[in-house]
């Protein structure tokens, strides 16, 4: 047994070494994106289009691990939390530099985090809300906290806590922070593995390797391996795939799930399904009455559970995700830290669903309208399948297709019964999705109107609980309470489908969605 383990280790080491030798340096990787970034400022950005590539340009003190489960060292080589949990000391690596060659100091760190936690700035400041003050001294940065905060390491590994060069930013033209950010974000300089060298909006973006990047590759020299990455903006899915097949691209994101099987068979293409934090569900209006004053059948927990049991997820996974999805058992994805693998979810059980309907106040069934995103083939496939499944328990589903902005406006006004929805985490911690999905005081539990005093209490405790086992227990309870209340229809988790040329090695899209090009290289 022991010798077997040892030989396995030797083999693994040999494989790793082989890989290390194979990493080739240089070249340009051309990657097809479905849309362009909007605004490359870590604090004031708005969308995944920015978030998912910001970490290539700006580095953070800590970094999310590629499995989505925790954090690892970044610009800070280590950190310690005080016994009472009321402060945290981070030690910066020696000799850190920004992409222009200027030194990255503790003062830059203090300034960047102060900017990021300013409540007036951006949509993301709440992740750093526990910080009361920051002290920079030498290569050490001390964060003094209002209360213990178990989410802080993950927050410091998130895009909005990126470290920016104070001098360059303040030297940018503009009267205030927002104006300076506009100017700076046109030609951003950070300390990430790459630096923006060219950007033709809507067309392409080129990132060149940052020669001062601190992280070393397997060959002992500084990362990244690539000389540059070029993003081509190709909104049409088919065109992206054609361009990849023709060799004009070495990578293409957001491959339609319907084409995954076909591309898996293609000889020169490495069709990869990166695990994600994406959960797909149907959000229900849980309020007793709808906006027009009529009684809302979805306010009955029996009905909500019945709809969950009557949805045959295995069939939906085949129909909508072409088998690439995975059963959703908790409101958070299985790649989210503190996901409770023991959650039963709602396995398909038509008999149980019928019994629940019979026990509800709506025995004779009812008609319900769901808001879908127009033009989304996935939404339509999903909902027409559900129409059939729910028909079996006397629920008549009507589909209303709306463009995304109109859909958003409708549910913001609580003017909906059901709507399709997907979520991805921005931070390697369960607190973000939990605060949105389960807390009424945030945005009425993503406008479902769900409210649970028990969850509110557990969540508040978990936000200060430094004991990982205790925090995990709190999250287990939250997930159970939420599941029983069934404010949403649990559907499936879906991966990030990326098609790469066989030559591309070392590229990862982490569960949070960030595209990591630092360790990517092109095989010769």
């Amino acid at each position, binding site marked *: 047994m022991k010798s077997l383990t040892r030989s396995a280790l030797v083999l693994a080491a040999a494989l790793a070494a082989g890989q290390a030798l194979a990493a080739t340096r240089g070249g340009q990787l051309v990657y097809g994106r479905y849309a362009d970034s909007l605004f490359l400022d870590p604090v004031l950005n708005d969308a995944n289009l920015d978030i998912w590539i910001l970490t290539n340009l700006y580095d953070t003190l800590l970094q999310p691990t590629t499995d989505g489960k925790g954090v690892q060292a970044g610009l800070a080589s280590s950190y310690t939390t005080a016994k009472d949990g009321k402060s945290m000391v981070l030690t910066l690596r020696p000799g850190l530099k920004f992409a222009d060659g200027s030194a990255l100091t503790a003062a830059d760190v203090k300034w960047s985090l102060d900017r990021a936690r300013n409540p007036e700035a951006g*949509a993301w400041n709440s992740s750093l809300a526990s910080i009361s003050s920051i002290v920079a001294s030498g290569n050490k940065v001390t964060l003094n906290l209002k209360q213990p905060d178990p989410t802080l390491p993950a927050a410091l590994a998130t895009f909005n806590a990126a470290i920016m060069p104070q001098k360059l930013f303040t030297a940018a033209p503009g009267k205030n922070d927002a104006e300076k950010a506009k100017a700076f974000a046109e030609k951003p300089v950070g300390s990430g593995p790459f630096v923006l060298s060219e950007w033709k909006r809507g067309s392409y973006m080129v990132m060149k390797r940052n020669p001062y990047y601190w992280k070393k590759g397997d060959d002992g020299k500084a990362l990244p391996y690539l000389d540059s990455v070029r993003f081509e*903006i190709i909104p049409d899915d088919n*065109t992206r795939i054609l361009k990849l097949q023709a060799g004009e691209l070495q990578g293409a994101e957001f491959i339609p799930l319907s084409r995954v099987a076909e591309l898996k068979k293609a000889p020169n293409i490495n069709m990869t399904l990166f695990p994600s934090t994406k959960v797909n569900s149907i959000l229900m209006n849980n309020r007793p009455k709808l906006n027009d004053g009529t009684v809302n059948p979805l306010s009955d927990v029996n009905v909500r559970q019945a709809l969950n049991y009557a949805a045959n997820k295995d069939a939906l996974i085949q129909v909508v995700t072409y088998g690439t999805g995975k059963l959703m058992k908790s409101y958070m994805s299985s790649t989210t830290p503190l996901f409770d693998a023991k959650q039963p979810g709602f396995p398909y059980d038509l008999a149980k669903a019928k019994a629940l309907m019979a026990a509800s106040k709506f025995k004779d069934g009812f008609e319900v309208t769901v808001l879908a995103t127009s033009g989304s083939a996935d939404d339509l496939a999903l909902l027409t399948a559900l129409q059939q499944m729910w028909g079996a328990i006397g629920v008549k589903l009507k589909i209303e297709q709306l463009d995304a902005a109109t859909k*958003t406006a409708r549910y913001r006004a609580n003017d909906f019964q059901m709507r399709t929805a997907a979520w991805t985490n921005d931070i390697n911690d369960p607190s973000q999705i939990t605060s949105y999905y389960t807390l009424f005081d945030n945005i009425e539990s993503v406008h479902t109107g769900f409210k649970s005093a028990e969850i509110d209490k557990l969540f508040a405790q978990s936000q200060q609980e430094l004991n990982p086992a205790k925090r995990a227990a709190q999250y287990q309870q939250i997930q159970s309470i939420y599941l029983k209340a069934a404010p949403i229809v649990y559907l499936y988790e879906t991966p990030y489908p990326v098609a790469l040329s066989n030559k591309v090695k070392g590229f990862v899209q982490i569960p949070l969605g960030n595209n990591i090009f630092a360790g990517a290289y092109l095989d010769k």
Partner: protein
Amino acid sequence: MHANYVIKRLLQIIPTFLAVMLVVFLLVRLLPGDPASAILGDRATEEVVERTNRALGLDKPLPVQFGIFVGNLLQGNLGDSISLKVPVLRLILERLPTTLFLTAYAAVLGVLMAVPLAVLAAVRRNTWVDALIRGVFQVGLSLPVFYVALQLLTLLGARLGWFPIGGYGEGFTGHLYHLFLPALTLGLNLAAILVRTLRNSVIEVLGAEYVEFARAKGLRGRVILGRHVLRNALIATVTLLGLNIGALIGGAVITETVFAIPGVGRLMVDAIFGRDYPVIQGLTLTFAVIVSVVFLITDLIHARLDPRAELS
């Protein structure tokens, strides 16, 4: 020559623009959804949405917003894009040349295909040649633009490798090469519209008295076609082309998406989905200017070709 006429027409454009601006300004605000929540997505809190809308000046009463917009416009300022945070004018100037190039390219290809084929169909009217030409274009007209685009891409781009898939290349020859397939897509659509009308007008001209007269005089068929028929056919083409320029730009919206061309068509689609008011307004104004100018040029050319058309 027609300087007075041109000046008068240009002056007439101004109230048209104001009306267009007012309508668009109100229409985009009547759409459900606001820019802040469109950009921020599902998870933004009310507070953040409100703060964002306030920062964009969208909390002010509509007349005030319109006043600010027109005031800025008079200073040549179209405002900043809400989602991209750069001046709208810059975005349009960056992307307009690409769309104009594509539109002109498509128009040229469309005319090059349509005119000879329409004349051929007319001359050989009611033969199999006529039926074939009309049939092919009838089918072409009924196929959706994105379908034709994808088929061309798959066949001539991916399978045969004759043309690049998407993008628009560097320099004039680069544009010609890269934009060939999208221009062909749009050109086919345009040719389908042109062929039908052109064929009819050629048949009409062929039966006209003066053509009979010319024939009686003993002029050869080719001369009649060149001197009399084509000249008249050209009048119809120019007018039709002018009228279809809006449709051509509309078609560019789809082709630009399929062929990954960063033109104003795609910018408009993104702006509408993102409720990016300043971009929508700026682009509408641009389209209005283009269409007005094209109509004016069409009228001028028409007058040149057809002395009967009076400019007044």
